[in-house]
């Protein structure tokens, strides 16, 4: 035998690393519970109702905060763009994939945030992935909250910067890490306005003040606040009066805006160079013309949505109070956003409760590790400005019956 003869060992199965998750899933489904991760919306009737398993279901887990998905102006803009520009661009933004609509939606974002630059990505995930991995390079430091979204972590992993996490919303822990960074190194602090698992907000005012005092640039992901937090719906940084000190706001079209796509807005004078150096922007096809047309129309309508904002907050407060009154354990003591996280004792009872709610005619998100902090299982509810006051009462009744049947309350 010479060295070139391949060994005759059986090939290692690259899927072995998923065995633990396969077993968790198998044992959960063996209890007879409906698979919470393969629900099909057979027909969508409105921002708040759909047909699931043949029955009408109230949607309480969509992030469709402002209910723009069926807005008549938004739909009309999308149809017109399909007719005028076709079904897709088949190209990168830097080649053949920038149509008038892509520029128009970036103009709408600049107006919405009153900022100098806006760059639209094909998804919110790619916006974080692209901006973070590109601006923080070798020798730079990224200081970020440990509960950051997967897209932020993946952006850190894709880049070459040193990654330094701190305990969730812990101002002192963040400051200690900033203080220890070697002099002269570039620093990027990454925060979120609303953390989507528990629905809690960040103390941005104090955190950004400290970050700036250490010479850091600040990026804030406002995915879960756009459209309804802050006087103009610009997010938690606006609400706390510190938007002027944020270097980069990351956002998404797949929540309040009601379609798909992601963006970064900034006042940095050199920001436009991002379009040439940011690989998740360059090496992917741009959004379809109908998507950017619906997004631009929706964003401009969200600038004047004061009444809807007020109603969404009312819904959030009402449901939070009702669920607390019923004895459920929630992610925050007071409602801080349009997300209400109901903490489940474990995955099995969480899945049972999820199924009981679905039988009642209510859809919520079942969230479990590793997406959740501290190994928690959550039933995550996101309210919509289009939920009627009556629907919120119906939802509370469904939670009461389901909670009692599963034995959680």
């Amino acid at each position, binding site marked *: 035998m010479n060295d070139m003869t391949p060994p005759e060992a059986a090939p290692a199965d690259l899927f072995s690393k998923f065995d633990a998750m396969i077993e968790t899933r198998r044992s959960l489904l063996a209890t007879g519970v409906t698979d919470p991760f393969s629900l099909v919306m057979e027909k969508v009737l409105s921002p708040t109702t759909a047909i699931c398993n043949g029955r009408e279901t109230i949607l309480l887990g969509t992030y469709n905060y402002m209910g723009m998905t069926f807005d008549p102006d938004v739909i009309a803009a999308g149809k017109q763009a399909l007719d005028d520009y076709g079904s897709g661009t088949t190209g990168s933004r830097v080649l053949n994939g920038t149509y008038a609509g892509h520029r128009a939606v970036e103009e709408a974002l600049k107006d919405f945030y009153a900022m100098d630059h806006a760059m639209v990505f094909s998804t919110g995930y790619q916006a974080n992935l692209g901006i973070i991995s590109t601006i923080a390079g070798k020798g730079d*430091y990224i200081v970020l909250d*440990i509960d950051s979204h997967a897209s932020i972590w993946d952006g*850190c992993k894709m880049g070459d910067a*040193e*990654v*330094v*996490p*701190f*305990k969730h919303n812990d101002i002192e*822990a963040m400051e*200690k*890490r900033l203080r*220890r*960074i070697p002099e002269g190194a570039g620093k990027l602090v990454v925060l979120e306005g609303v953390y989507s698992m528990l629905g809690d907000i960040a103390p941005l005012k104090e955190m950004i003040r400290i970050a700036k005092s250490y010479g850091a640039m600040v990026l804030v992901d406002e995915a879960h606040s756009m459209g309804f937090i802050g006087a103009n719906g610009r997010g938690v940084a606006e609400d706390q009066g510190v938007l002027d000190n944020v270097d980069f706001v990351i956002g998404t079209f797949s929540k309040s805006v009601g379609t798909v796509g992601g963006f970064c807005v900034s006042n940095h004078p050199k920001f436009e160079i991002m379009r040439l150096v940011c690989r998740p922007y360059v090496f992917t096809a741009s959004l379809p013309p109908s998507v950017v047309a619906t997004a631009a129309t929706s964003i401009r309508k969200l600038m004047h949505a004061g009444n809807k904002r007020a109603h969404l907050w009312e819904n959030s407060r009402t449901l939070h109070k009702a669920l607390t009154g019923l004895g459920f354990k929630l992610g925050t003591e007071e409602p801080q956003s349009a997300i209400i996280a109901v903490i489940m004792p474990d995955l099995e009872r969480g899945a049972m409760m999820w199924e009981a709610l679905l039988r009642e005619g209510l859809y919520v998100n079942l969230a479990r590790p590793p997406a959740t902090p*501290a*190994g928690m299982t959550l039933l995550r509810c996101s309210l919509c400005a289009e939920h009627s006051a009556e629907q919120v009462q119906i939802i509370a009744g469904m939670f009461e019956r389901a909670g009692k049947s599963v034995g959680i309350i």
Partner: protein
Amino acid sequence: MDRAATAARIAEVIEPFNKNGIAIDETTSFAGDLEWDSLTVMDFVAAIEDEFDIIISMNQQAEIETYGQLIDAVTKLQG
């Protein structure tokens, strides 16, 4: 601080985290032998960082699998 003095201080910091009282030597692995979950790892790293006033980035943590490697890294990071 030399390696021996660093090791002695790390031994004190790790004590409250070693809830199962596992005997720790230089080859003890954090994931395998101590079976720490990611939250415990984060709290422990923060405690070590505070004790020595250093940063151990995620990138550096990825290189530290055993107790001995941690002592080496902390000794080096103090400069």
